């Protein structure tokens, strides 16, 4: 009972410290929210539209105009410039004013009607892989449809029935189904991972700030005294307000993605919130561990930078974990965020059952094993300071 009172006192002490510090208040409120809003705003459009491409029409026939019209009419592409030659278009391509150059060759129309199968050439800037893929896919689809249209007309003349004409033109149909992200929307794909990635940076930085300032200002004895001398109550009490605040932030992020916005959440919210709480505790512990390396504020921040800043790349969202090398795969496992994201995707996208994510919970729980050694480390570290 006494221990719990000391815990409450320590938490109250920390709350007081937070209230007196504009910086800590900022780190818990408007600074992260601003960052989240900024990132969400960048991807607000969700699906790339009207991506600029350039056209070089060396034929200028009815058919080439038709092809150009079809390219422009689709929502993905926009013919931003018409050039007399590839060389003229190339400069704009290199300046990223256009992302592709579409060339309709001379004698295009005559060749088509003479069944000579000319080619429309598209030079796509694939330095930008994502944009390149979108542009290529849109071009393939449009040219494919456009060509089939011509063929159907030709074949109709011979077959006299559409049902007979279509299989002659395209014997196999392919039905493509995206599972779990039906609209192929980049917002939910990226932002659902970016927000937690930013969040974990804030958790670690803020916790290090909390401990770092205590040491830097030399108020460690007061802190321990507030907890009645109990180190465990002091440590837990100090971290309690932050754990609460960041848990709330995590909930807000989930609500934003899956309630405020219409992205589906197919699984159990209880499981999701449990994962969030566990992940928050894990990051709090890791922050404490990073600080306990040298008990120096600025050094701990540098370590935090190495651990948290590159995390997004290791998550396996943009580049699949499946294809990572052994070091990257291992480091992926060392990041609590990886496990949290797996739970989030399993719950939101797959509607998985709790047993299917038990492994991730286990991995997260393993991180908490650092707590007992951490207690010892703080005991000896404080002994030296006080």
């Amino acid at each position, binding site marked *: 009972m006494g221990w719990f009172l000391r815990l409450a006192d320590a938490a109250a002490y920390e709350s007081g410290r937070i209230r007196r510090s504009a910086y800590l208040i900022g780190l818990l409120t408007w600074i992260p929210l601003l960052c989240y809003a900024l990132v969400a705003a960048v991807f607000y459009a969700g699906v*790339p539209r009207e991506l600029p491409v350039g056209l070089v029409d060396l034929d200028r026939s009815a058919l080439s105009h038709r092809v150009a019209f079809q390219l422009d009419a689709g929502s993905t592409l926009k013919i931003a410039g018409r050039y007399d030659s590839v060389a003229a278009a190339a400069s704009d391509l290199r300046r990223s004013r256009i992302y592709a150059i579409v060339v309709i060759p001379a004698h295009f129309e005559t060749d088509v009607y003479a069944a000579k199968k000319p080619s429309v050439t598209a030079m796509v800037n694939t330095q930008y892989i994502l944009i390149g893929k979108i542009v290529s896919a849109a071009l393939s689809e449009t040219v494919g449809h456009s060509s089939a249209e011509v063929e159907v007309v030709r074949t109709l003349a011979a077959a006299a029935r559409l049902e007979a004409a279509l299989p002659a033109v395209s014997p196999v149909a392919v039905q493509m189904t995206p599972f779990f992200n039906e609209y192929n929307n980049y917002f939910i794909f990226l932002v659902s991972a970016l927000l937690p990635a930013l969040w974990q940076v804030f958790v670690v930085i803020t916790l290090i700030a909390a401990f770092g300032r205590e040491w830097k200002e030399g108020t460690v004895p007061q802190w321990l005294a507030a907890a009645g001398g109990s180190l465990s109550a002091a440590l837990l009490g100090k971290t309690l307000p932050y754990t609460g605040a960041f848990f709330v932030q995590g909930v807000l992020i989930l609500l934003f993605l899956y309630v405020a916005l219409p992205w589906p959440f197919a699984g159990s919210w209880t499981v999701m919130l449990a994962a969030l709480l566990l992940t928050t505790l894990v990051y709090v512990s890791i922050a404490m561990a990073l600080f306990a390396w040298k008990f120096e504020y600025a050094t701990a921040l540098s370590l935090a930078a190495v651990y948290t800043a590159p995390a997004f790349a290791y998550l396996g969202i943009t580049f699949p974990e499946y294809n990572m090398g052994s070091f990257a795969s291992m480091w992926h496992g060392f990041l609590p965020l990886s496990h949290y994201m797996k739970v989030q995707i399993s719950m939101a996208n797959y509607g998985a059952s709790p047993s299917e994510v038990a492994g991730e919970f286990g991995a997260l729980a393993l991180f908490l094993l650092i707590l007992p050694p951490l207690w010892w480390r703080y005991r000896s570290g404080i002994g030296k300071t006080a």
Partner: protein
Amino acid sequence: MKLKEVLAAELRELFRDRDILLTIFGGVLLYVFFYPQPYLNQVVKELPVAVVDYDRSPLSRQMVFRLDATPQIAVAETAMSEREAKTALTQGRVKGIVVIPAHFMRDLYAHRRPTVAVGADASYFLIYGGIVKSAATLALSEGAEFKVASRLRSEIPYEAAKRQYTAYDLNLINLFNPENSYTVYVLPAVFVLILQQTMLIGLGILGGGITERIRRGVPGHWAQAPAWKVLLSRLALFGAIFWVHLHFYFGFGFELFGVPHLADPAELLTFAFPFVLATGFLGIFLGTLFIGRESATPTVMFSSLPLVFLAGFVWPVEMVPTPLVWLSQLFPSTPAIQGFLALNQMGASFAEVMPQYGLLWAQAAVFGLLAWRGLARQREQAKGAANIK
């Protein structure tokens, strides 16, 4: 104070501070190896797929065999039903499903246009794109083969049959990163950002530390020397260090990870010069605003992810709300990434990156002025604090 003395004082400040050294030497060295690790395999290969073959004809078996043979796909499981396949998907054993309908071969020959269904986990885009594109291409080429075969049967010569199977087609040419290598995609841009961020953190820690000492009334060269001398010395010192880092990243770093560089070294360095200036001045200016040594790392870290996605190489700039695009123009990394990518990866001429070059110089001028004013202000504060003492 003479300029030489100021330079010596700045040098001492830098090399006495372990945290700054850790960031601008340790960090730079670490990050060149650490950031690329996830992308070492460059492309996505052999994604596991479950195939449900309801047809079990020679043709469908050929299709399954060819599916497995494509580099992007590995047929990991052949399921008895779609439900089985879907379970494998949600359990993560496979990332995609291909369903070949019953009577596929018979329907194809009877011109009844059978449908092959391809589905993949779109939670992860590279996975979805990789599987769907490869599988769809394969299914369509089976169709195309069939068409050619049909025409051959109508006794059209093979060459003509090959040409006639479609009215016209698309000849797609991949420029600048033809194999779609992820390292070539990401590293040139991320390297530029790392250089900027580490330089800003280093200068920020230094500046913040000075502010702390001014508050405590600790004397230093910043109180005695005129601001322009401090500005020049600090810029020269950090600028020189980061000039070397630039070579390290664009030379050794690019070589190590197989990133091509098309730019003429002289042009590259000419472009880099205002980048180092602008970043240096920005760092010095921020340093005069920070109240302590611990302000720099968090502030710079919070800006990293937003800056990556505002640079325009991942997400098209055309899709970003205009106010955010303007905001991104305040940071040297934005024009620098765009310019370096154009010069190194796309073989652009210097004239083609003039807008970015101009912006970097403009930033250098503005930040230089702000940095100078900031240092002058710090000097006043320092002299004031000394008087009070």
